[in-house]
């Protein structure tokens, strides 16, 4: 049981009705930590748009400590079990917003997502960080954002007015309304090799300086690529995707080395052309990131399009 210092109602059941908010400003504040058990309760508490959401805590808790974020109300989502489910249907995969990186790391239904999750942070962070948290924070270097952009994923948001589904690019452009809860991510079932590669300050437990996700769809004969860490949002190098798509022998799913190399060069060109490049920072210059994007893209294409390699994981590091 949680009680506030002034003895007001506990935050355990977390229905807004249980928290009489005193009308006169300054007399008292409502209980500031809510720990709901259901999505329905969560969106009710969120209805006035005045609460911060706590998922895995890896971003919010350090920000509370330094004072960078100072919410009056926090909704902790750890106990909302319906957010922690994942599953597959005929037409796609659905992953609850509360699913952790560790949950995804061993998920055989999406090898690219598993490969991405395995290189996020450290075991400690992977045990805490969630899909919904990654989208909520929307760090331009976020590993998961890069992969979800390449995988043509959609974000499911819910408020008291109902649910809506938006593509990842439009979610990243428009953001989440403060009254909405990210409940899930949907993405198509994998239909071919997938890879996620990143460069960072260290091989492990390090944020990506540049990342590259590649998703090959051998049924629809498409190649999708996303580059993270070069702009405010992951970049889709459309011309490079079209080039490699035309160069793949779709009967075997392979591409010759010159197509793979040309793909890397076109990705570098696409990164050069982005309108909102992330500026030089102490970890990497713009020129380095542009170069690294092309190298990673060609490497990823080499792994995914170099012919049968039944054993090797397409997502290796």
């Amino acid at each position, binding site marked *: 049981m949680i009680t506030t210092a002034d003895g007001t109602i506990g935050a355990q059941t977390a229905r807004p009705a249980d928290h009489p908010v005193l009308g006169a400003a300054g007399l008292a504040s409502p209980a500031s*930590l809510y720990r709901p058990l259901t999505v329905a309760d969560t969106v009710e508490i969120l209805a006035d748009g005045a609460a911060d959401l706590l998922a895995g805590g*890896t971003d919010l808790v350090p920000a509370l400590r330094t004072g960078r974020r100072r919410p009056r109300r926090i909704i902790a989502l750890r106990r909302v079990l319906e957010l922690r489910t994942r599953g597959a249907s005929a037409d796609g995969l659905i992953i609850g917003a509360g699913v952790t990186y560790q949950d995804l790391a061993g998920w055989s239904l999406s090898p690219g997502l598993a490969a991405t999750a395995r290189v996020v942070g450290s075991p400690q*962070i992977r045990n805490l960080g969630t899909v919904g948290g990654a989208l909520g924070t929307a760090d331009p270097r976020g590993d998961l954002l890069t992969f979800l952009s390449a995988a043509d994923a959609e974000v499911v948001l819910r408020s008291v007015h109902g649910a809506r589904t938006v593509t990842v690019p439009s979610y990243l452009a428009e953001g989440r309304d403060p009254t909405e809860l990210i409940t899930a991510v949907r993405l198509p079932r994998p239909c071919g090799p997938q890879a996620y590669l990143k460069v960072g300050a260290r091989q492990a437990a390090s944020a990506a300086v540049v990342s590259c996700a590649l998703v090959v769809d051998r049924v629809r004969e498409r190649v999708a690529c996303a580059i993270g860490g070069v702009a405010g949002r992951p970049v889709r190098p459309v011309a490079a995707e079209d080039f490699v798509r035309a160069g793949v022998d779709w009967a075997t799913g392979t591409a010759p080395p010159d197509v793979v190399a040309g793909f890397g060069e076109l990705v570098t060109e696409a990164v050069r052309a982005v309108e909102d490049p992330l500026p030089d920072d102490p970890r990497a210059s713009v020129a380095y990131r542009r170069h690294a994007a092309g190298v990673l893209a060609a490497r990823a294409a080499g792994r995914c399009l170099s012919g049968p390699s039944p054993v090797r994981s397409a997502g290796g590091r």
Partner: protein
Amino acid sequence: MSEPAYRNVSVDEDPACPSHDAGPRVSYQLHIDGGVREVAGAWFGESLLRVLRDHLGVLSVKDACEQGRCGSCSVLMDGRLVTSCTVLAADAADAQVTTVAGLGVGGPARAVQAAFLAHGAVQCGFCTPGFVVAVTDLLARRPDADEDEIRESLAGNICRCTGYGRIIAAIRSVQEARRRPGDTRWRPGTGQRPGTDQRQGTGR
């Protein structure tokens, strides 16, 4: 709030933490190393690390980066390895929290601690509690992890003294001892997953 004797500056007055004035204070119980501890009047945004150290005096949980990067504050929460600096303490009220003191005898914790001493894996010692928690968690899940997997699994624990070589040597020795016939110190499958045996540990 009763002030721990070791600390002569209260958290509220720490000028580096202006946000501590924002939001009300809350009281709740935490389940630490099998015992129940009362937290009274803690700022609602306090991390589990700060509550363990400042409110409950659990000083084996070390405080270095407070950004989830160094691993010195590692604990198990419901049997999962986490950095306590990135956990909201009040949201851990119904979880079982296990520090190095509560790892118990069911898993490899004792053998890990002995091997750390025998192999010089403890130098300044600041990172050691976090490492012991992380290594115990790893060996309970993956007793035969090879060196690559060990290094990758410990990437979230930073040591600035040993260069990691002695830590790896200590872990390898635990693994070798386990494979030796007649060794009874620790066998996987005979004990519980660390952090799930709540009869062990004293909470201190």
